[in-house]
C-alpha cells in the first residue's frame, strides 16, 4: 500500500479540546485520590499543607476488614464464570454468523444491542418476577448474577469477538484445516481460537470491567459483590473505599491499555499473512 504523506501538525483547536477534556476527566479523580490518601480537610488545604499527612492507612484498614476478602473473591469468581459463559454462548454465535449464517448478521447485531434498550433495572424486575415463582433456588445462589452480567457485557463482547473473527480469513482457515483431516473441535481449538487470541483477551477484560463495576443488579438481588461492599463500607471507612476505587480505576485502565496494545500487534500480524495470500 502506498503511504500517503499528509499534514501531521495537530491544530490548535484540537489541543484546546484535549486539554479541556483532560482537566474534566482528571480533576475529579485527583480530588478523590487526594481525599483517599491525604488526611487534611479541604478547608485547611493551602500551599503549606499540600504535602502533609499523606497516608495509606485507610486502604490498609480496608484490606484487613474480614468482609473485604469474601467480597473480592465473590467478584473474581463471578468474573471468571461470566467470562466462561460468554465464551460458551457468544463465541459460537459469532462463529456461526461469520461462517454459515451471514444473512442473520444484522439480526444478531440488533439482538446484542438489546441490553442497551432494556434498562438493567427493568431486566432484573422482569427476570426476578419470573424466576421467583419458577425456580426459587436460582435467585438464592450467588452465581445467579453470572447470566445477568453475561447479558450486560454482550454489546461489548460480541462486537470485540466479531471484529476479531472478521479480521482473519475464517472460511479459508476452516476449509484448509478440515480438508487436511482435522475434526471440527480440533479446528476450533488449534486453528481458530489461537488466531483470535487478542480478541478473546479484549472480550475478557471488557467482561471483567463490567462485573467489577456493576451495582444495580447486585444491590437489588442482595449479593455481596465488591461494588456493593464498597458502597456499604463507605460509611465506616470512606478513605479506604475511595482509595480502592482509585486503584481499581487505574488497574483496569492499565489492563485495557495492555489489551489494546496486544490487539493492535495481533491485527498487524494477521493483516500481513492475509496480504501475503491475496
Amino acid at each position, binding site marked *: 500500500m502506498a503511504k500517503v504523506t499528509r499534514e501531521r501538525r495537530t491544530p490548535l483547536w*484540537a489541543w484546546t479540546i484535549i486539554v479541556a477534556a483532560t482537566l474534566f*476527566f482528571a480533576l*475529579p479523580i485527583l*480530588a478523590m485520590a487526594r*481525599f483517599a490518601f491525604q488526611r487534611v480537610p479541604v478547608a485547611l488545604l493551602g500551599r503549606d499543607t499540600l504535602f502533609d499527612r499523606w497516608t495509606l492507612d485507610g486502604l490498609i484498614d480496608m484490606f484487613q476488614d474480614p468482609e473485604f476478602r469474601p467480597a473480592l473473591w465473590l467478584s473474581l469468581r463471578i468474573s471468571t464464570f461470566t467470562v466462561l459463559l460468554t465464551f460458551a454462548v457468544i463465541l459460537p454465535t459469532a462463529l456461526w454468523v461469520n461462517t454459515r449464517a451471514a444473512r442473520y448478521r444484522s439480526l444478531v447485531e440488533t439482538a446484542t444491542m438489546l441490553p442497551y434498550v*432494556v*434498562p438493567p*433495572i427493568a431486566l432484573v*424486575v422482569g427476570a426476578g418476577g419470573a424466576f421467583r415463582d419458577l425456580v426459587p433456588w436460582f435467585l438464592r445462589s450467588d452465581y445467579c448474577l453470572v447470566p445477568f452480567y453475561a447479558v450486560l457485557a454482550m454489546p461489548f463482547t460480541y462486537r470485540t469477538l466479531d471484529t476479531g473473527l472478521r479480521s482473519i480469513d475464517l472460511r479459508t482457515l476452516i476449509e484448509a484445516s478440515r480438508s487436511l483431516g482435522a475434526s471440527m473441535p480440533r479446528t476450533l481449538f488449534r486453528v481458530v481460537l489461537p488466531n483470535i487470541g487478542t480478541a478473546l483477551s479484549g472480550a475478557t477484560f471488557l467482561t471483567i470491567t463490567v462485573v467489577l463495576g456493576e451495582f444495580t443488579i447486585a444491590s437489588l438481588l442482595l449479593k455481596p459483590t465488591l461494588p456493593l461492599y464498597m458502597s456499604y463500607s463507605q460509611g465506616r471507612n470512606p478513605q479506604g473505599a475511595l482509595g480502592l476505587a482509585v486503584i481499581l480505576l487505574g488497574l483496569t485502565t492499565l489492563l485495557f491499555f495492555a489489551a489494546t496494545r496486544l490487539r493492535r500487534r495481533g491485527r498487524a500480524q494477521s493483516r500481513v499473512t492475509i496480504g501475503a495470500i491475496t
Partner: protein
Amino acid sequence: MREAVSGTYLDSFLYTVKLSALSAFLGAVLGALLTAAVVRVERPTWARQAVSSFAGVAANLGGIPLAFAFLAALGTQGLVTKMLGWFGIDLIGAGFSISNFAGITVVYLYFQLPLMFLVSLPAFEGLRPTWRETAANLGASPARYWWNVGLPILTPALLGGFLLLFANAFSAYATAYALSSGGAKLIPVQIRFFLQGNTITGKDNLGYAMAAWMIIIMVCVMGLYLILRRRSEQWQR
C-alpha cells in the same frame, strides 16, 4: 399501568427523559468534538490507545466512586470549587450544585463523553485524510468541508451515538442514587423504591408498570432512530 404515568410519577418520567436527552445531546456533541480532536493527534502512536483504554473504563464508571469523585471536586468543599475560589470565581454562589439538574448533567457527562468517544472513533477513523485534502485542493474551506462532506458521512454514526447515550443515561441509576437528593426523582430510583420499600403496600405492581413504561419509551426511541438512520443512509449510496 395508568397510575405509573400520572401525577408525581409523570413528573419523574419527564424529569428522567429531560435529563437523558440533555446529557445525551451534550455528550454527543462534545464527545464528537473530542473524537475529532483526538483523531488529529498522530505523533505518539500509543496516545490514542491510552485515551481509548481510559474511555473504556470511564464509560463503565458509575455509582458511588463517580458521585464521590465529583463531590470531592465540585462539592461545596470540593477541590475545584476551592481552586476556582482562589481565582475569585464563586461556583456555589453562581447557583451551581452537584445535586441539582445542571449538576447531575455534568456528572453524567463523565461517562457519556467516553461512550460517545468509543462509539464514534471508528467513524472518524474512517474519514480519509485524502478527502480533506481533495476538498482543500478544490478550494473548499475547512468549514465547508465539514458541512458538505464530513458531517453527512458521520450523521448515521453520530445519531447512533446519541441514541446509545440516551439509553445509557435513561437506565443509569447508581450514580443518581448516590447523589440522591436530586436523583430520587429519577425513574430507576423510584422503581427500586417500590421493589424494596415496604412503606407503601399494595402497590408492588407500580414498579413493574414503570419498568414496562421504560421499555416502551426505549422501543419508541429505537424506532425513531431506525427511521432517521434510513433517511440519512439514503444519501450515502
